[in-house]
């Protein structure tokens, strides 16, 4: 009985063969276990609720200012409140990225992770895979609040719902480069205050950039502030391609960075 349980794979779980050979074993589930006690999940919920409170409070206080506007309800709401909401999203993103790597660095856990038969970059990609569902959840909370505002104060129609869904999808796509860059910075800096400080300075830079310059608004931290409603078709494709390209570029940069760090260490 004893020998059976020791030799059995239930006692010492053997992972799939790719990870033993050092492949890309992506384990967002394992990353989820690591963040259990960091309070990251409640933080995402709180941030989503806080950001969702902005349009509701705004409409509750001064709805008469928006009722006469000619645009679609979603566009009115986004133009009124999206700056604040996206600011909260990006701030949360930076903090979350810092915490995700801080848990690894704080007690030299990263060194142990590096000695496992795992590619270091798979850690990064697992973390981003964990971050994306949490971002989707936050955006869904915000979308629900915007939908509620449409229904309660402005007109509500199925078109508004699809417009809202498209806007949130677009926002998620534009958040990706910022998420990847924050994670890259958090991975690169051993001390949390350095990565947090660089992130804060970058967000501040994004708020200072002129809004009418297309090239400058492609800065990863400036993109989440864009609003889909009322945007030209070419601009939408421009932003989407730029976000996709930046994301791919940042993934490649992360892999190269880890290789160089490994070699030079």
């Amino acid at each position, binding site marked *: 009985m004893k020998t059976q349980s020791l030799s059995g794979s239930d006692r010492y779980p053997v992972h799939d063969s790719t990870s033993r050979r050092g492949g890309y074993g992506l384990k967002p589930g394992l990353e989820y276990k690591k963040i259990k006690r960091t309070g990251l999940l409640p933080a995402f919920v709180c941030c989503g609720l806080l950001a969702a409170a902005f349009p509701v409070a705004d409409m509750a206080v001064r709805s008469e200012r928006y009722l006469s506007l000619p645009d679609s309800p979603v566009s009115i709401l986004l133009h009124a409140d999206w700056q604040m909401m996206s600011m909260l999203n990006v701030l949360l993103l930076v903090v979350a990225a810092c915490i995700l790597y801080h848990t690894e660095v704080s007690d030299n856990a990263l060194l142990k992770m590096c000695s496992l038969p795992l590619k270091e970059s798979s850690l990064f990609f697992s973390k981003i895979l964990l971050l994306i569902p949490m971002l989707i959840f936050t955006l869904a909370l915000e979308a629900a609040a915007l939908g509620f505002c449409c229904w309660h104060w402005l007109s509500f129609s199925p078109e508004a719902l699809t417009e809202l869904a498209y806007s949130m999808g677009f926002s998620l796509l534009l958040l990706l480069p910022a998420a990847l860059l924050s994670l890259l910075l958090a991975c690169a800096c051993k*001390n949390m205050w350095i990565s947090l400080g660089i992130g804060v*300075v970058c967000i501040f830079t994004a708020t200072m950039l002129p809004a009418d310059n297309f090239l400058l608004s492609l800065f990863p931290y400036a993109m989440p502030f864009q609003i889909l409603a009322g945007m030209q078709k070419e601009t939408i494709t421009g932003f989407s391609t730029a976000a996709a390209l930046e994301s791919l570029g940042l993934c490649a940069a992360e892999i190269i960075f880890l290789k160089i760090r490994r070699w030079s260490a």
Partner: protein
Amino acid sequence: MKTRLNNLDTDARQSRQTGRNINILSLVRVELRKTRRSGIQWILLAADIILWMPSILNAHLNFGMQAEGISPEHNFLIQGFMGMAWFMFPASMIVVTVLLTQTERSNHGILKMLALPVSTTRLCLAKFLVLLSLAGAQMLMSAGMYFVSAAIASHTRNYPFMLPPLFVLREAGLMYLAAVPMLAFFWLLSVCIQTPVFSVGMGLASIVPSVLIINTKLWLTYPMAYPFFVITAEYGKLATILETAQVELFPWIPVAIGITVVCLAASCLCFGRAERK
């Protein structure tokens, strides 16, 4: 190096002799020495450089402010300081609080500090004084960068943007004084909340609504809005046509002092409590 070690040694000997009465200034000196190699000064400097860059590039916009009735050189200064008071200064102060708490939590440095015959209240206050001095350093760097950028803008636009140094320092000093309750609040957050995501997240999230809050009566109870409110009030003073809410010293000063004292007292009570458990 030798003399420094000797200094520390005499500090320690004095503290052993006098029990818990180590001089707070020497504690501040020790704490400042810990931050020396943290690299925080580069982040603060980078923030200040980025703050004034758009002002140099967009210096011509300062000439179109006739509607507000503010002179171009005053507008140049106030716009920069407003950008600083709204987001950059509070956010970088949160980064500094992270630095002050996290450097010692890694490798359990704080446990060693708490084991010394030093009163925890003094230790907490010494760290808060370091926060204040880093805030002052950032304010001074920002004022210094103002002079650099005003000189560059004066050169490129052929217009004297430079204001008298005393006036600039007075504005920076006002903003700094108004920021003290906010700093006390951030310090309370970072000392009392052990999970970093909440102490940092709450601090950063509390900055965002300050733009909305300065337009309401609630600003009085919201220390994160104080620096921005003071700078907006100064803007209203300098712009002859524009009217902004002015600072009324009577209810504000007692409330600000109250908030500072309560936050500091609470953080001194909380300091090291989690480690001592």
